[in-house]
């Protein structure tokens, strides 16, 4: 895209920085829209869902029906509020903390693909990162920094408690979260989110959730850990209202306070979308509509480029957004139903339950995959796994494909690799 823009501005320099900057800005605006509009919708949803759960109506007036502009009104109110920095606070860090939190949440979206263009290297992501899963988790882990700094810099004891709890909790939960994520990565043989999503094409039985009983279990572990790592009830200990007043954001007001919430809702959607890609087929719907349509029309496959390719891509975006929103709704539902756990119970749950369960599931999934045991996944493999894997091995193991090695010469190592690569394919 940068080349396209530069072809107008600097025809002789296809990689001029201005074109790249404009491209980047377009991506940034789109991602910020996902987060900001997402937060707008999710906060409204939170109020509506909690209202219904509690026998209330929730907002009804602002914006005509259903009060759907309530969040905007709230946002205006927050912008208009006084921006207070406590006298005791370390004002530089205090002012910076919410932005840091938001930046982390935002950066993780860079690598999140929203659809695949049906060809493996063109996921609809701001920047397709080869180690996408790892990148998203690593950057998401940075969100805790904003919270810790907020807790520390506020100069309030309650905030300090909140910050310390957050640090302990998030650092702990990164371990089981990583373990859970490794399982789909192992099944797909790639850390690339686009590849992982594409591997689950076809009927919904192809989703990794239904790969074997262990992946089915591990999804719930993942979801629990994800809730804990984005600080949602019943794991919202950093802001535990009844204990720590408001935890790390006790001293915040107005816009800065709302930026924390933008970050929180952003990461909520992020982990839900990640769950959708890792376990629920990502942009692939429960039924392969476009493939069926293509075969009905007598085509070999649905086109990956042009207008029709975009139509399929947009349908994929709708799919993943829907799945992400469902995940967020479940989080909201859980929040308004369950009491909060205690900090030691949260940590106990992480180390004594989530980590071992995830580890056992990892071993189980490995066993299942290695022995190729039948499960729902094998019901209706619309697109052969090997095809996607082949892409993987061709692109990443260029040097190691048997043919390449044969050229190199007959060595023991080449044989070993041949066997290995054959096993993988």
């Amino acid at each position, binding site marked *: 895209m940068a080349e396209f823009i530069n072809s107008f501005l600097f025809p002789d320099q296809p990689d001029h920085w201005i074109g790249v900057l404009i491209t980047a800005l377009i991506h940034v605006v789109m991602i910020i829209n996902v987060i900001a509009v997402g937060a707008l919708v999710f906060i409204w949803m939170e109020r509506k869902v909690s209202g219904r759960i509690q026998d209330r109506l929730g907002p009804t007036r602002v914006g005509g029906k259903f009060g759907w502009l309530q969040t905007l009104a709230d946002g205006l109110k927050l912008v208009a509020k006084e921006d207070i920095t406590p006298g005791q606070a370390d004002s530089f860090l205090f002012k910076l903390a919410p932005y840091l939190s938001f930046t982390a949440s935002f950066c993780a979206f860079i690598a999140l693909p929203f659809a695949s263009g049906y060809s493996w290297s063109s996921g609809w992501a701001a920047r397709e990162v080869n180690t996408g899963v790892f990148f998203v988790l690593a950057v998401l882990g940075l969100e805790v*920094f904003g919270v810790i700094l907020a807790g520390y810099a506020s100069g309030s004891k309650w905030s300090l408690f909140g910050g310390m709890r957050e640090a302990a909790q998030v650092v702990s939960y990164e371990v089981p979260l990583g373990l859970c994520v490794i399982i789909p990565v192992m099944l797909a043989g790639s850390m690339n989110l686009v590849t992982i999503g594409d591997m689950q094409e076809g009927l919904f039985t192809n989703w990794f959730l239904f790969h074997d009983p262990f992946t089915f279990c591990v999804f719930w572990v993942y979801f629990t850990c994800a809730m804990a790592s984005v600080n949602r009830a019943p794991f919202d200990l950093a802001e535990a209202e009844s204990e720590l007043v408001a935890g790390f954001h006790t001293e915040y007001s107005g816009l800065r306070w709302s930026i924390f919430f933008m970050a929180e809702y952003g990461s909520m959607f992020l982990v839900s979308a990640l769950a959708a890609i890792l376990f629920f087929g990502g942009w692939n719907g429960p039924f392969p509509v476009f493939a069926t349509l293509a075969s009905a029309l007598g085509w070999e496959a649905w086109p990956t480029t042009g207008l029709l390719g975009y139509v399929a891509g947009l349908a994929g975006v709708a799919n993943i957004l829907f799945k992400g929103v469902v995940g967020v709704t479940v989080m909201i539902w859980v929040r308004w139903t369950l009491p909060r756990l205690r900090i030691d119970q949260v940590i106990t749950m992480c180390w004594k339950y989530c980590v071992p369960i995830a580890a056992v599931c990892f071993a189980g999934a490995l066993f299942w995959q290695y022995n190729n045991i039948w499960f729902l996944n094998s019901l209706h493999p619309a697109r052969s796994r090997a095809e996607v894997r082949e892409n993987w091995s061709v692109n990443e193991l260029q040097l190691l494909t048997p043919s390449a090695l044969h050229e190199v010469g007959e060595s023991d190592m080449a044989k070993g690799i041949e066997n290995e690569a054959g096993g993988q394919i």
Partner: protein
Amino acid sequence: MNWHTLLFYLFALMSCGFAIAVVASSNVVRMAFFLIVSLASTAGLFFLAGAHFVGAMQIMIYVGGTLVLLIFGVMLTAHAAFVSMVTKSSDWVLAAVFGGALLGLLALTAFSVEDWRVARGDQAAVTSSEGEFASSIGQALMGMRVDRLSEGNSQLEAGMSGYLLPFEIIAIHLLVVLIGAAYLARTKRRVGSVTEGVQ
């Protein structure tokens, strides 16, 4: 200007500038924050070089893991509300001498490598193809010299030539350190404290 060059300067400046800020600041938590930015910029350099895996690793381990623990430690052990550290001038001199020596050594080494003196012509090709995939790293750790396979050297046999042994040694070493740290930080009882309690 090339976007690649521009971003390189940006990240390099941020990395060095905030590293200096770490030294210049006296507030421990601010230092930690500057260190975050500095290390994150280094991760940016890795990404720029196409080493996504290493970049993400940098963020996960140094920025995400180590620094969170650092701040956590500061917060837990702080005696005053905001810890500030005043560096003595003798420390400054000592640090300058050692730091300068290290920097000189590194610079000298870097400039002595022949290949590095001239810029590569095919920058775009490097960033888009070479280190972009994590699999090679994994395979190197499993005992294959992926970078030297084309040499066809029979000495580069599987399991004998890669980084498997150093990797395993480091892993065991880290485990030992981890257990040692846990042991050191553990609750200690004075001998006979139980009987004292009874009395």
